[in-house]
């Protein structure tokens, strides 16, 4: 089999806060390969869409991923010259505005030719407000203002856009692995009901959707799991052939590592039942998956299976109306833990005087921080053990609909400056809107997807 019979999928970003420059090396690597090549930027998370809708609400020309063009612009020249389609879900709440901005950027570069496709239809917010969402959708009980309403759409629109000649495909809430499935169905003309091959494509997308998390990012544990050149992990690449052979590798010359351990960790990432991982495109079964080391930074994947895609699609609703408040103060030196613990007692007493039964969450960073729980059971367990910690940060946090109540609680942390235990310092506080999400389901045939060209 020659390289021309292969397809290469590279992910240049795995979340909106990823590093833009790694994708430039990836684009150059892809451009040097022969065969079908695709560059994908995955930029959405559960909450991102609600935040994007809020930006769109204040400016109709916004609402796409705010750093979208920091990712796309540096690779645009390389990809257009080499015929590498760029695919992203960074259109978020406003793919059309993203396409218009991309057109402006192309015009500013001398009117470079490019066909830009927007994948539309996943955004049901207007339909929600007009009461026009299918009566067959199953929603949970909702309280608070609905800010976003999207359905995780599948690969077919991406494939269609590529078949119709798109150089750039801008999606909203297309499911993360479906971006890769759409590309591979385009490369090999795989059909949506070819479960075995859609399963392989879905595994490829699943492994790559968090970008460097499969290639040495989020992996290093000195002495146990060491990573070469950990400051520069390279973007991952999936090499796929028409029969469904799959190899995971990474950008040539980059740091990081791809081995069976990195692939295993990412394979189960955010997965529940490994025998039935639901996506819009297939029900994936990796129960018999086999990983083979094929040399440095190359892992082969076999034995994945698929069953026909679910009849219903999953949707996600962003809900506003709540606030997230946090305030912190530090205690250090002799007796730091005891003074911080006393500050906690004082805050709990003051909170119950503000409102009967009010118990804010309080962590003591250095003693019990991220492992702690809302009731402080873990904190009490840790305080009961002897400790040599002498630099502790008290953190009070609360999520509530009552903004004024949160303000008063944060005031109480600040008031510890003059009223609390000795030697407290370094108060910081913040109060931001809290966006919740709830999921819902919609029968597949009730979602109408479409393409718009720019």
């Amino acid at each position, binding site marked *: 089999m020659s390289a021309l019979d292969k397809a290469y999928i590279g992910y240049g970003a795995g979340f909106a806060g990823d590093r833009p420059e790694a994708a430039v090396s990836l684009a150059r690597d892809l451009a040097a390969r022969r065969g079908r090549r695709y560059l994908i930027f995955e930029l959405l998370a559960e909450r991102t869409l609600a935040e994007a809708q809020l930006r769109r609400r204040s400016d109709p020309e916004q609402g796409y991923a705010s750093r979208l063009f920091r990712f796309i612009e540096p690779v645009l020249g390389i990809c257009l010259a080499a015929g590498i389609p760029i695919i992203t879900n960074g259109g978020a709440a406003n793919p059309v505005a993203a396409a218009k901005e991309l057109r402006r950027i192309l015009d500013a570069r001398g009117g470079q030719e490019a066909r830009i496709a927007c994948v539309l239809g996943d955004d049901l917010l207007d339909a929600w407000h007009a009461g026009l969402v299918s009566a067959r959708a199953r929603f949970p009980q909702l309280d608070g203002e609905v800010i976003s309403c999207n359905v995780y759409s599948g690969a077919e629109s991406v494939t269609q856009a590529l078949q119709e000649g798109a150089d750039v495909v801008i999606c909203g809430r297309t499911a993360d692995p479906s971006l890769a499935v759409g590309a591979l169905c385009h490369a090999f003309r795989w059909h949506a009901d070819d479960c075995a091959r859609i399963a392989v494509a879905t595994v490829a997308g699943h492994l790559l959707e968090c970008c460097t998390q499969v290639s040495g990012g*989020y992996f290093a544990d000195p002495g146990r799991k060491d990573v070469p050149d950990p400051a520069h992990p390279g973007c991952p690449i999936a090499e796929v052939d028409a029969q469904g052979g799959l190899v995971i590798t990474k950008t040539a010359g980059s740091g990081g590592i791809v081995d069976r351990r990195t692939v295993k960790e990412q394979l*189960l*990432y955010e997965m529940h039942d490994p025998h039935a991982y639901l996506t819009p495109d297939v029900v994936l079964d990796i129960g018999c998956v086999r990983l083979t080391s094929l040399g440095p930074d190359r892992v082969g994947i076999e034995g994945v299976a698929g069953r026909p895609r679910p009849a219903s699609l999953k949707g996600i609703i962003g809900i506003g109306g709540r606030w997230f408040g946090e305030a912190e103060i530090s205690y250090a030196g002799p007796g730091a833990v005891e003074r911080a613990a006393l500050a906690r007692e004082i805050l709990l007493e003051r909170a119950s005087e503000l409102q009967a039964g009010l118990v804010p969450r309080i962590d003591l960073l250095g003693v019990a921080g*991220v*492992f702690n*729980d*809302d009731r402080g*059971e873990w904190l009490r367990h840790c305080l009961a053990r002897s400790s040599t910690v002498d630099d502790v940060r008290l953190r009070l946090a609360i999520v509530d609909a009552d903004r004024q109540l949160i303000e008063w609680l944060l005031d109480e942390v600040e008031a510890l400056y003059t009223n609390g235990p000795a030697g407290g310092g370094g108060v910081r506080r913040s109060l931001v809107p809290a966006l*919740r999400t709830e999921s819902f389901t919609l029968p597949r045939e009730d979602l109408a997807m479409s393409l718009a060209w720019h």
Partner: protein
Amino acid sequence: MNEAKCEVLLAELAHARAGDKGDILNIGVFVFDPADFDWLSRELSEERLRRHFAHRRPTRIERYPMPTLGGINLVLHGVLEGGVNASAGLDRHGKTLSYHLLSMRLPAPLPR
């Protein structure tokens, strides 16, 4: 061999990564040495997991052994205090909880 040496820190024999969906945490945990998979399957019991994560009040715990990967997918329901968009915790995803798992002390495997 004294008492203390009969226990092993899970982090010495296995590696793990946590992921979140809503209020559900999953942790993929894998032995470094495939020969330890049976030991992991036996000792990392639902009962021990329930005790170790008791302060997060799991409503349900599922274990999916993955023999071909030398690991287990653990799914802990209700432990993220509402999840990334509702929790007041510092690590609202529960990403660091992979290392809470790896801080478990289990009966050491028999010498081979």
